[in-house]
């Protein structure tokens, strides 16, 4: 504002100036290599050791979930009643369970199911949550009120009722589990997004964009959501473990994967009951579940820091 008021010093004569030639623009080029935002994020992720550790743990577990059941001489369903509840040893590295099945294969077979369900459910929650929450938060007022009420109603309907009804309509399968989880899963995400958007929508950059004629969708997805990425990513990384636990809960209701297949959730539930005498039956699935959740969380934290434009140095 104040520049306008500055009077031009008298020694600045017009003849002192000349027009720049085209190639001389390059003299003023930024010295820092221009990065796309993704390159930028990737670069900053690489610098974050904890987050990268998380990333490699996730990669490792996914690889193990694919390779170990494939390479192992054992399968996850054949019983061996002569060697039940064996302590971890050279043959069965993770021991065996109460029906003599190899815990190593079962743990990583469980990883396949749990990881798949967790990640897919989280992504669905993310998509629905961002769209719904974004609209709620951006428009506010009556739109917000009605949409918010709708979410609250869905959130309050006894979950079990919906799930049992779903079982009647659909065959038990991974798809059914994911549908069952997505019915209410997205609501938390939507609420978080809503709160964020409400805070951000009157920031200058949003208002500027609006005054330049940008549509609501462009403002929400181009400007507001990227700036709200922090809490969104935190919530997202929480959704993965939640989904894994919900899957375990659904398994008990007969909606989850059917035996003899097992997810981490069901294995942990079995293992907890035996933890005082056969601790390995709890230890391995619980350890890998916790490790996965831990990895997702630190990775998510790192991602959040990397995404956040305000934290650029």
């Amino acid at each position: 504002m104040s520049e306008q008021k500055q009077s031009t010093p008298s020694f600045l004569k017009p003849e002192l100036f000349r027009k720049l030639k085209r190639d001389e623009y390059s003299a003023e080029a930024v010295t820092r290599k221009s990065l796309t935002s993704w390159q930028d994020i990737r670069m900053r992720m690489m610098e974050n050791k904890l987050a990268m550790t998380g990333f490699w743990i996730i990669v490792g577990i996914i690889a193990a979930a694919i390779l170990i059941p494939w390479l192992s001489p054992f399968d996850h369903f054949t019983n061996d009643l002569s060697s039940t509840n064996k302590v971890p040893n050279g043959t069965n590295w993770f021991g065996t369970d109460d029906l003599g099945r190899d815990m190593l294969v079962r743990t990583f077979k469980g990883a396949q199911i749990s990881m798949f369900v967790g990640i897919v459910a989280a992504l669905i929650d993310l998509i629905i949550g961002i769209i719904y929450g974004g609209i709620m938060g951006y428009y506010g007022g009556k739109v917000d009120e009605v949409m918010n009420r709708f979410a609250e109603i869905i959130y309050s309907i006894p979950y079990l009722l919906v799930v049992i009804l779903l079982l009647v309509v659909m065959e038990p399968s991974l798809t059914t589990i994911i549908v069952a989880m997505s019915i209410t899963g997205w609501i938390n995400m939507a609420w978080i997004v809503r709160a964020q958007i409400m805070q951000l929508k009157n920031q200058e950059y949003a208002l500027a964009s609006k005054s330049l004629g940008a549509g609501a969708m462009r403002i929400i997805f181009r400007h507001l959501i990227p700036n709200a990425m922090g809490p969104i990513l935190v919530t997202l990384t929480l959704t993965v473990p939640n989904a894994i636990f919900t899957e375990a809960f659904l398994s008990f209701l007969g909606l989850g994967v059917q035996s003899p297949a097992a997810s981490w959730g069901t294995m942990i539930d079995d293992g907890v009951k035996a933890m005082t005498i056969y601790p390995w039956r709890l230890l391995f699935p619980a350890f890998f579940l916790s490790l996965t959740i831990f990895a997702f969380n630190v990775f998510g934290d790192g991602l959040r820091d990397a995404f956040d434009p305000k934290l650029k140095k």
Partner: protein
Amino acid sequence: MKGSFKKPAQFMLVLIVAFSMLLTACTSNSNKPTPTNSGTENSGSGNTETGGEKEAPQEFRFTLASEPPSLDPALMTDAQSGIVAAGLYEGLTRLNKDGEPENAIAKEIKVSEDGKTFTITLRDDAKWSNGDSVKASDFEYSWKRTLNPETASEYAYMLYYLENGEKYNTGEITDADQVGVKATGDYTLEVKLFTPAPYFTSLLAHYTYLPVHPATVDAADDWATEAKSIVSNGPFLLDQWVHNDKLVMKKNPDYYNKDAINFTTVNISLVESDSTVYNLFETDKIDWIGAQAGSIPTDLVGGLIADGKAEVTSVASVYYYLFNNNKVPFNNAKVRKALAMAIDRQALIDNVLQANQTPAHALVPPSIAGLEGKTFREMYPDTDYISENVEDAKKLLEEGLSELGLSSFPEVTLLYNTSEAHKKLAEALTDMWRKSLGVEVKLANQEWGTFLESRKAGQFDIARSGWGADINHPINFTYDLIHPLSGNNDGKYNNAEVQKLLDGSLVAATQAESMDMLAKAEKIAIDEMGVMPVYYYTTPTLIKPGFEGVFSDYSGHLDWVFGKKTN
């Protein structure tokens, strides 16, 4: 910024202190009157019970997995209610440790020549907890009330033995006076049955036959939901009922046979988780686990039995699978039989179930009584009913499939209700079929409500089932399970010969003949493998040292009423 960190830390400390004070404030005013964990001390002031002798406080503590849905005899349906009711009420008879009826409120029971009329003389010194005498009319009132359609008692069928009992309950007649029970004096009760039932004196011990206090029942529908409004006549009184938490029972000082009662306080905590129950036992908070009063975590059972810590008692219940007799391939007896022969029941028991169950080759459990002091199974051993032979099974399966015109075993599913134990057995079973017959059976589980509906509607190929005894008589496991018209024959096994034998057993001239007919019917049903028995239940139990007279009864329910602590 770093240097100033100390202060927020102090601030947080203040918050934490404030929070713990708040928490204490929250909890202290909510303390319940009698802490279960602080022994026999009772902080409720009105109670004058002193706990008695110094040498051994006569206290007994156990858990139930869920609270009794009702303590109204007409509305009770489950084991938990039965265990509490045994202390709370006194019926005409009680079953002793061997499952035989002994007189309780009844002083004398006379049976007529035709076995249809029972004249029961009551003792005149039994009292209700409000001081009223227990009279014959209380029984008459109670039974008629249970049969009254308006009471909507689920167990009313237990009283169908009474003349016109069924008709009254189903609304065919509306005059309660026609029901075969009448108080002919203050202390005499005349009972007329529609058919001779030699086990009627055992039936009298069942909770559906307990008396109620008429004035109390008439006064309020919800009389049986709170400790203070229950009027009872048993050896114990309900002192406290904190819903979903615990029940506390105290010895009834006015019980007519109070010298036989030793426990002064019985604490029943409501604990659902098996592991928690076991941890409570380990930390000396409860004295007993097992027999429907908590159960030992399945993974610990084997070890505890091997160490001699847990005792195993057989239970009059059978675990079996239903074949859907109307569906391919189980409409073929050979296929059914092949599956039944291809499993190694003993291996399942030793490695999977681990509670010394008995392999079941028929339906009537070993503890069910027969005649002349023998059990039914002693009279008709089932050991050779099913031969577990994989080679024969394979042959039978092939024959069966070709009779059906099938080239391979079709895709079938085994349905069970969601529970860890059922899952484990089903997994082991299907693995055996896979290995021995090369048959692939898929598993599916449903939660209880859906499962029952699917099973009743016949929407299954193979379904898990279990059956327990209401009365100590083989008819429980034959008529109910394999009679073509029985509502519990969900696999729709249908054999006219079986039907004839079972119907005949009801009107047979002698007991021996009746037993014989039941045994024959059972044998035919097993030969055709209408249902596939797996094992007879047992219940492993744990008890703290120093208790006497606490045991699991023939049906696998805790009987604690006459127990005693000796040290």
